[in-house]
């Protein structure tokens, strides 16, 4: 009943020898730098963001070393301030925000919806160039002395008082913002107009839904950041003192504008990771996703409500009590769609056939860490409690649970999951599982102590600290070194597998998405013939083409109501 018109080899047969694919279609540096193929552009992004991740990671390592001792182990305060600023700038603007959308999203969206490419392929290439030009400005800022404002660029420190390379860094981020905008635009238009016949909205993989939600944030949020940073640059370079308190300018205006983008930006990082997790869980439980529509709508819900909560970063900044209450209330509303997702993922495991392969380890790790991060978010949204923990290591730990525990786990899980599709090769499974576990352990050891540190009152962005905080800081640094190892491992075996890994079949797991219906790696045109979709998403039961045995019972009764979270 359900086959594609497209597809060559059934899952079990070996991949054809040296078929023409997007990797070997043509060679040479020009064929890469001038490509308009979304898959090659995704790989270009992969190279770029990996470099920036390494830079950000290097800064992180120095930060943790510095904090080994109370009086500062390594560098003076001036250098330390530059370190944490550059760590934040690199990781957020040049790694986390582009990571899943620009690498995995670019690669997968056309494949998942059965299109030959994104709607605007040249624009896509242009985005990559804009991204790198912006990055060049920022790297220039780093090598000519660095920036010491924190990644938040709060005025009036950034606009008047800082003597570091704020302008260059700000211009770099401004430029990079347009790369995000164009990528988001491309995705939205592609998802609207380029879907294959039969690929209705309710048949889209959740990954595409989350990318759609992310793109909305890109489109509507990023321009506000761009103009805000442009105003800071104008104040520094042209004396247009819009935020200048000496003229009567309001320092909170910058914060409003900045967080209007930068809070939803958190959802830019986490939403795609949720999408990845959803794909992985359905595939490795070999079961339809529980509550598909609820999960899809929750993605959009998070994107929209995410725009209404920004001032929860400003509860102690001097906003009015009434505004603080309104924003606190709205912040709690974001918890609802997030909770819906977590419950549905958990319910998906029910009566599944769960295998503990590497991507699944990342996905389960993601859920655990995301729940921790989300639950501590409740502390921060409760305005009364926020007064105490705001701007302390509690916040640092909270957002690392979301961004590293959530977004980076999702990104790595996704890379593993789609690696066979991207490269046509498998990675070493045992090593990869070990790396996933090392990462999980190292991560918790690094950041859990920081919750306690923050609760005890250690403020963030401190180059030196009172001696009573040392023990927990040493724990954190020890965890960070394990975490660092956890990041080195995948880089090594991924590079190894590109050449020596065993060849992957077109659908190794097997999974239900359209992207698995074409060969690995896919041909330049993605599909030999435009596919026609006739099946519902994540339906393993009615897919004989996957080569799986029939489940033992034909017709399960619907899941009964509550009590489910506890088992059955």
């Amino acid at each position: 009943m359900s086959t594609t018109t497209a597809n060559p080899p059934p899952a079990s047969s070996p991949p054809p020898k040296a078929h023409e694919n997007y990797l070997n279609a043509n060679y040479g540096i020009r064929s890469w730098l001038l490509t308009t193929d979304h898959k090659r552009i995704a790989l270009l992004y992969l190279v770029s963001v990996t470099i920036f991740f390494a830079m950000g990671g290097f800064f992180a390592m120095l930060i943790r070393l510095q904090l080994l001792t109370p009086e500062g182990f390594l560098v003076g305060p001036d250098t330390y301030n530059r370190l944490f600023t550059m760590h934040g700038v690199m990781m957020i603007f040049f790694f986390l925000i582009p990571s899943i959308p620009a690498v995995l999203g670019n690669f997968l969206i056309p494949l998942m919806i059965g299109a030959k490419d994104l709607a605007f392929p040249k624009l896509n290439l242009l985005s990559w160039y804009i991204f790198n030009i912006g990055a060049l400005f920022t790297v220039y800022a780093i090598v000519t002395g660095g920036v010491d404002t924190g990644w938040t660029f709060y005025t009036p420190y950034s606009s008047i008082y800082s003597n570091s390379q704020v302008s260059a860094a700000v211009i770099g981020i401004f430029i990079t913002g347009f790369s995000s905008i164009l990528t988001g635009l491309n995705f939205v238009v592609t998802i609207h107009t380029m879907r294959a016949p039969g690929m209705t909205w309710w048949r889209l993989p959740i990954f595409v839904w989350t990318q759609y939600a992310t793109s909305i944030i890109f489109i509507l949020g990023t321009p506000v950041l761009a103009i805000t940073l442009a105003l800071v640059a104008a104040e520094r370079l042209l004396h247009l003192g819009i935020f200048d308190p000496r003229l009567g300018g309001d320092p909170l205006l910058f914060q409003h504008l900045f967080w209007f983008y930068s809070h939803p930006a958190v959802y830019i990082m986490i939403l795609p990771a949720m999408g990845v997790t959803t794909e992985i869980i359905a595939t490795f439980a070999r079961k339809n996703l529980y509550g598909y529509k609820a999960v899809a709508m929750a993605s959009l819900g998070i994107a929209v409500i995410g725009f209404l909560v920004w001032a929860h970063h400003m509860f102690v900044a001097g906003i009015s009590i009434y505004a603080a209450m309104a924003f606190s209330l709205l912040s709690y509303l974001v918890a609802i769609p997030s909770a819906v997702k977590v419950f549905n993922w958990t319910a998906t495991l029910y009566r599944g056939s769960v295998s503990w392969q590497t991507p699944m380890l990342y996905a389960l790790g993601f859920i655990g860490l995301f729940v921790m991060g989300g639950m501590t978010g409740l502390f921060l949204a409760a305005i009364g409690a926020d007064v105490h923990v705001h701007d302390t290591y509690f916040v640092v730990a909270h957002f690392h649970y979301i961004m590293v525990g959530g977004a980076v786990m999702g990104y790595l899980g996704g890379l593993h999951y789609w690696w066979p599709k991207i490269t046509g090769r498998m990675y070493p499974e045992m090593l990869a599982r070990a790396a996933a576990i090392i990462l999980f352990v190292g991560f918790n050891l690094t950041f859990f102590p920081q919750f306690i540190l923050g609760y005890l009152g250690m403020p963030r962005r401190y180059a030196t600290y009172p001696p009573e905080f040392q023990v927990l800081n040493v724990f954190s640094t020890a965890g960070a070194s394990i975490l660092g190892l956890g990041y080195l491992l995948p880089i090594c075996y991924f590079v190894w597998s590109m050449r020596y890994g065993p060849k992957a079949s077109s659908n190794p797991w097997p999974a239900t998405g359209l992207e698995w219906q074409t060969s690995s790696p896919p041909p330049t045109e993605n599909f030999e013939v435009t596919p026609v979709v006739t099946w519902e998403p994540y339906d393993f039961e009615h897919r004989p083409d996957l080569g799986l045995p029939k489940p033992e019972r034909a017709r399960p009764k619907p899941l009964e109501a509550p009590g489910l979270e506890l088992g059955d």
Partner: protein
Amino acid sequence: MALIVVAVFFSVLIGVGIFYLSFRYRRRPGHEVGQLVEGSQLLEITWMVIPFIIAMVLFAWGAKLYVTIRQSPSDALDVYVVGKQWMWKIQHTDGRREFNELHVPVNRDIKLTMISEDVIHDFFVPAFRVKMDVLPGRYTTLWFRPTKTGRYHLFCSQYCGTNHSEMGGWVDVMEPSQYQAWLSGGSNSESPEQAGQRLFTSLACVSCHGDLSGSGPGPRAPSLRGLYGSMVKLSDGRTVLADDAYLRESVLDPGAKIVAGYDNIMPTFQGVVSEDQLLQLFAYIKSLGNQPAQNASAAPGASATTAAPAAQ
């Protein structure tokens, strides 16, 4: 804390749920594919409504606490704080000034009125669970009531530049008697009121506002006696409360709010007086109290504030 309970409960719930389910339904021979499970609308609604209720309860709790934190009690002991890169300048109403250290009596509400001379700082005392940003160009307030004597950390927790991590100090909570001894023990610097009075003369405020010895208006401007905490009628018909923010604006931007019946003739003192001096001027104006009877009922809080130091 209810929050911790909720957080731990859900973390454990999900954690155990995941582990149990993924172990119970692990892949085994003969169990290669999961079964199709239909969604249940009832279940979806259930797990939307339950977290929503919990969230609203937490919100109400947090909001109530927040209101308490942000609303200073009216009879608190006033202390003025000026933040600058990278030190705290603290001025007590009784005249002592100190740096990076704050001495306060135990079991007494303390209200800090804070302003920054340069960038944004943040006054944070972890032991008291309070924190507030200190902004340039605008007063913010913070209050707490220490209940145990001792020395507590004071941090700046809004990043403010190179020596951000050094911009801290101690809060010394003392027995009232020790506190009195400490107050009188300092160098014999003049009190802020006296300094403010001197400024009032040297900046020639007297020439328009009068010397404030009587209750009548000055030659060209309203008297400031009893101004603080009263309601002022403006020329455009509005009535505003004469608080710190109002006084600050009236000195730095006199044209913004003009008292009914007077002309806009006052020059600005922007760049002429420092933040410290402004606070001294206000201390002087406050020390003149609310003598005129017609204002006493308008601002009971303010009269109590000014009365408090005198009582000690």
